[in-house]
């Protein structure tokens, strides 16, 4: 199956816009701040070469950094999950499935699989991001609380997006 680059460009733009215009303004109960823009990395095809995946993740991260005055912070978190995504995929998916199915979607892979996959990526991303952002282990428990609660919200939003937009 041929990959349509414009479709992924659109996903990139929509993910970034959703994040910087809407979700960056959200703060619930003083600790929950969702980061849903990694939706772009989540949806990239299985066969994306690993190096390309990391480069795309870097570009995505720097784009978000551009809007939040945090040079390198989102970029480094994105490169990390770009590197880990194939590892996670190999952990939770059989080789045959990866060869026969082209895209990680709820419709292709089932709800349970998709939620697990998103959870791995989101938790890794948030854990790294919140600690780099805080740049200290001082308020360790508070940062952990932030990571857990924000992750739950991000996972719900990303999985939900599969039923609202980007069904393909």
């Amino acid at each position, binding site marked *: 199956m041929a990959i349509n680059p414009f479709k992924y460009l659109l996903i990139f733009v929509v993910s970034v816009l959703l994040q*910087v*215009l809407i979700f*960056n*303004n*959200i*703060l619930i109960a*003083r600790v929950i*701040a969702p980061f849903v823009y990694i939706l772009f990395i989540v949806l990239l095809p299985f066969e994306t070469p*690993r*190096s390309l995946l*990391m*480069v795309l993740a*870097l570009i995505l*991260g*720097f784009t978000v*950094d*551009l*809007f*939040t*005055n*945090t*040079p*390198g*912070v989102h*970029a*480094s978190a994105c*490169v*990390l999950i*770009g*590197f880990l995504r194939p590892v996670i995929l190999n952990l939770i998916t059989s080789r045959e499935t990866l060869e026969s199915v082209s895209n990680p979607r709820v419709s292709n892979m089932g709800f349970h699989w998709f939620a697990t996959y998103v959870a791995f990526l989101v938790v890794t991303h948030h854990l790294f991001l919140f600690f*780099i*952002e*805080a*740049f200290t282990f001082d*308020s360790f428990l*508070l940062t952990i609380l932030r990571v857990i609660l924000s992750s739950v919200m991000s996972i719900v939003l990303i999985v939900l997006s599969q039923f609202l937009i980007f069904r393909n």
Partner: protein
Amino acid sequence: MKNLFKLIYRYHVFFVFILLETFSLSVAITNNNYQRATFFDSGNFLSGTLFEKFSSVTQIFEFKQVNLKMAEENIVLRSALHEMLLKSNRGNYRTSDSIYLPQIAKDSSQKAVYKFTTARVINNSINQQHNFITLNKGRRDGIKPDMGVIANGQVVGLVTNVSENFSTVISLLNSKWKISAKVKRNDYFGSLSWDGKDYRRVQLNEMPYHVPIQNGDTVVTTGYSSSFPEGLMIGTISEFTIGSGSNFYKIEVLLGADFKNLVIVGLVENKQLNEIKQLESLNKYGN
């Protein structure tokens, strides 16, 4: 040599990862100082224009409330002006007639040091450790770095970077920024910063515990930073404890400004800022 290339090829994914991660992390660390944010600044053309367009739509709904607030502020200012006129004319003043205004301007020997302008907030965040605000005015409108930013007479932040049409402001809710502040009642001062935990509370540090303070005391600016006039409201003391093994209070200050709802802000320019900075820089060379 051939083996080395083989090795690099075999593990090229890992090397690419190390390369990209090192690059982005070093960017993150070298730009850890808020003043050095240059290219990655929400006042740049791309994000500035985007925020401007988006906020002009979303803020339509907030303008009614903003109008009400400004009307209230007008009344407060008008009554303050009235009082000042009464005082300055030593009782000769009878009606609030505008004829008396030029006389006062002539009387005062002091030149106005602070100049005020306004701008619209086009982007703002409270949900990060290092929050910034983007304004719709820039160099072309006379905005300069180090201008103070206030909302309804309360401290909000400090202009850090200015582009042609936009400017970015480091918010008081940014753990990298500190400002000196004092307790209005007794003039004891400390340094005010944010611990990144609650967007409604900041912390007043370095206040020795022999100073008498109580809940509800007003905390105001000192004027030492020269970006803000003295006595500008910051908030009120909501809680204080003596840290164990420390000579200083841990003071929580409830912010006066509502950071979740900033639409129009005022900008304060100290016309003597350059002179003060020049003078103070002389001391640094002396060391």
